[in-house]
Structures are given as C-alpha cells and as structure tokens.
C-alpha cells in the first residue's frame, strides 16, 4: 500500500493537469459526488464537526493496525476536498497519520478552504482525523 507521501504526490500530479481553476473545481465537484459519504442515518450529531458554514461528519474505524475513515458534508466542494483527505489518510497507520503535514492541499491550491475564517469544518476535520489516529495509537 502506498504511503501518505506517495498518495499526496499522486494527487498533486493529478491536479497539475488542470491549468484552469474551473476544470479543477469541476473535478473537485465530481470527487464530491463520487464520495460514498455517510448514510443519512449515521449523520448524527456525535459525528458532526462544527464549522459554522458547511457541516462535516466524520467516522473512524480501526482495523488491522490501519485507520479507516468515512466522511461527508452538506456542501459539495467541501465533500470533494474531504474525498481527497480520506483518499490520502484512510488505510494508513495511526503513527503516520499523526505525523502527516498535509501540505499537498497547499500545493494543489486549495489552502484557502482550510483557513479558520472559512469555517467550513475542514480544518477541524483534519484535526479530528489526527485525534482519532492518536487515540487508536494510544490504545495499542
């Protein structure tokens, strides 16, 4: 299985194909649509990450030493970015997730979506992904 760094590189290369922001966002929207997401029934408040604009739900499971994430949002662009985060971090070992710097988001020009003032929940989502990893790591 590819490492986090390798997966980040994969995403960066994919995004290098776009020279127009419209194409890039259309791609993110497609990723958002394709994300399996979370069942309506599982969109419970306990999985909700507060961002005041868009809502984000995040679940994590620990299987055979790897963390598996599933996540969702009510905003499609946010969902698309979530799809990228899940793709990079899901299936990795807790220790690696805790260490990941996630700079690929910056490299693909989506950093603005991670600013605290956007309050779309993404920043807190990354924090929460790492917290889950940390918790699983300590359980071991």
């Amino acid at each position, binding site marked *: 299985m590819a490492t986090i760094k390798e997966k980040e590189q994969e995403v960066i290369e994919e995004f290098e194909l776009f020279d127009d922001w419209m194409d890039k966002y259309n791609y993110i929207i497609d990723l958002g649509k394709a994300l399996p997401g979370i069942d309506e029934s599982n969109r419970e408040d306990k999985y909700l990450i507060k961002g*005041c*604009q868009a809502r984000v739900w995040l679940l994590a499971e620990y299987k055979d030493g790897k963390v598996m994430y599933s996540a969702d949002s*009510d*905003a499609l662009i*946010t969902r698309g970015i979530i799809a990228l985060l899940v793709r990079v971090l899901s299936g990795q070992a807790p220790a690696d997730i805790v260490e990941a710097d996630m700079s690929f988001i910056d490299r693909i020009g989506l950093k603005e979506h991670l600013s605290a003032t956007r309050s779309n929940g993404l920043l807190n989502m990354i924090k929460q992904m790492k917290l889950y990893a940390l918790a699983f790591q300590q359980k071991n």
Partner: protein
Amino acid sequence: MPIHTDTLRKAFPILETKVNGRPLVYFDNAATTQKPVSVLERLRNYYERENSNIHRGAHFLSQQATDAYEGASKTMQSFINAKHTHEVIFTRGTTESINLVAHSFCSKFVKAGDEILISAMEHHSNIVPWQIACREKQAELKVIPMDEQGELCMDAYRDMLGEKSRLVAITHVSNALGTVNPVKEMVGLAHEKNIPVMIDGAQATPHMAVDVQELDCDFYCFSGHKMYGPMGVGVLYGKEAWLNQMPPYQSGGEMIREVGFKKTTYNELPFKFEAGTPNVADVLGMETAIQFILKLGHQHISAHENDLLHYATGQLKQLDNIRFVGTAAQRTSVVSFLFEDIHPYDTGTILDKLGIAVRTGHHCAQPIMDFYQIPGTVRISLAVYNTRREIDVCMDALTRVREMFG
C-alpha cells in the same frame, strides 16, 4: 444630482482590483463599505499635519486637534439631528455602543425579574450583550418574533410590552434580510408605556437619512466603516436625560473631573463615556465620510440603491430553484438568497473565483437561519458605487454556478 457611478467609482481605487484576472465586483457592503479617497486623505492629513492629543496640552496643535474633534461631534449631531452635541458619544463602533448601553443602562435600571426585548432578526452584537446583562441581573430576555417574510410581528410586540419591560433593543435594518423595521412606530408604542428604546442603526445610516428626534428613540448606534468611513470608530447617540443618569462604562483619563484616592468625580457628557485618548483620526475620517454622503444626497443614494435592489431581485428571480430569504415590503440594499439544491458555501466559492465578493453563511445572525431552517444564505449587499452592469456579471456567474452544481 443623480448618481453617476462612472465618476463616483474614481473615488474608490480599490474597485479597480482584479481577482483571478477579472474585475472585482464588490457586493459585501453590509460587512464593510469601501472608502473614498477623501476619507483616506483626511486620515493622512491628520497624522501628517495635525496629530496631537486633544483636551490636554494647551498648545497650538492640541488646540487645533481639539477643535477638529469637536467639529466632528457637531457634524454627527446634525447628521442624525440630535438635540445636543454632548448626546453624541464616540465609540469603536456599533458593537461597543450597544455594549455601553447594555452595561451602563442595565447596571442602573434593570433588576431581577425585569425584561429586555430584542427581536428575532438581531445581529449577534445586539443579542449577546443583552444575554450577559440579563444573566447578571437575573432579568429575562424576550424575543419579538418575525414572520416568513422577515417582518416583525407587531401584534406580538404590542402584547410583549408590559410592566416588567425595561428596554427595547431592535435593529433599524436587518443585515441578513434587508428588512427596514417600523422603528418610529415601535418607539411610539414603547413610549406609551414609558419604556425606552435603543436602535441598532449599523445598516441604516449608510442608506437612509436618520433623524433621532423624529424617531424619538432613546439610544441610536452606528459604525463608521459601514458608511464609507474608517474601521474602529462609531457613535452612540443617547438622550441627555438617560446618559446623565447612567454610570460610566470604562474609566480612566478624560472621563474624570477630579481624582483623589478616596473619591473621584466624573466629567460631564460626553467625556464621562469617552475614557482615554479618543480615536481622533478615525473620528475625523468618519466626519469626511458623512460629508461624502451628504454631498451625494440621501435621496439620490436611495434612488440609486433601490433601482439596483429591484433590478437585482428581478434578474435573480429568473434562476432555477432560487429561494429569497427576506421578502419584507420595506427592504434596503440586501438580497439574501440560496439555491434549494446548492449549498451557499459552494455558490460563494465559485462567485469568489469569478471575482464577485459576497458573503455566505449566517451573517452573524444564526437565529435567523434557524428560523428558516437553512444552513445560511448568499448575501448580495449593495452600496452607492455598485452598478447594474455588476449585477449582470453576477447573474452570469450564478448561471455558471447552476451549470456546475445543478
């Protein structure tokens, strides 16, 4: 003179900004307006040639700065037609003005079991200070309801005014919905029962003439930065009779008459409420902003902005699945909407990419979003320098949004 945006826009160099290679369309004026060069020059001139602390040194510069500051008080007084200059208190802005009233008025006049009335369409700035004051005093915060259109329910309001009501604090114009509330009528009804009224005028002063004596309100708050002036300055107007009875808000220099370690006596109005060195430069900048508004003329500003408001509403109506939030009969300068099938965050992101600055989200008025059960809205808020052409650009952008997400 009717508004000529081509000439007018030259006074706002920031409007020439390019965003992603496209001309900026600035539709976030309810958050803050842009500043004309006259205001910028006023700030610069103050620091370049006039800077000195006021009311203190008896020297040339200090006297000059003091005169300028007092002149600005007079400009504010006449702008809102206050009876006295000392009824104008300079603050950091609407938020501080409201906090001042919530603190000083409540500490003197509110006791356990009393009630304070606000409305369902208040900005957080006109909710939280009252919540805190009520908690401290064990008083109750009552909320005047509104209907689907975003109009306050006047019958409910009448019924709520009672023996225990100590103060009504309502917004003149809603920042999220654009509703213009019937504040004069509301003041009249409250006064029948001797209840004072504070009006949050942050969204009114940029768009309409305000006459505090005609409204007969007891307090009126507004911010410089929402009306072409600098950030960090605003006004609290209060009737002399109330202000004189209220204890100071902050304490320090300027607000005292005599200080001893045993006892201090307070200065007269407005100094009692202006502790410390005031924000002289921004006060003067705000004065220049008011001169800018007066020179254009309120009737011309309203005519232009109403034309834009109607044009924008008419155009947007043509888009599929659009839902307007706030459809009150009396509205000004704000179109709040969302697409039923597209999250406002998504709409806002694409508009931003296309150079259009709008605000998305709850606009610091979460209770309104809860009322409509929506995650937020996209808000277009207009100012005097906006144009029909910009609305056309926005329409094209929204059509694109529909294509991308629809």
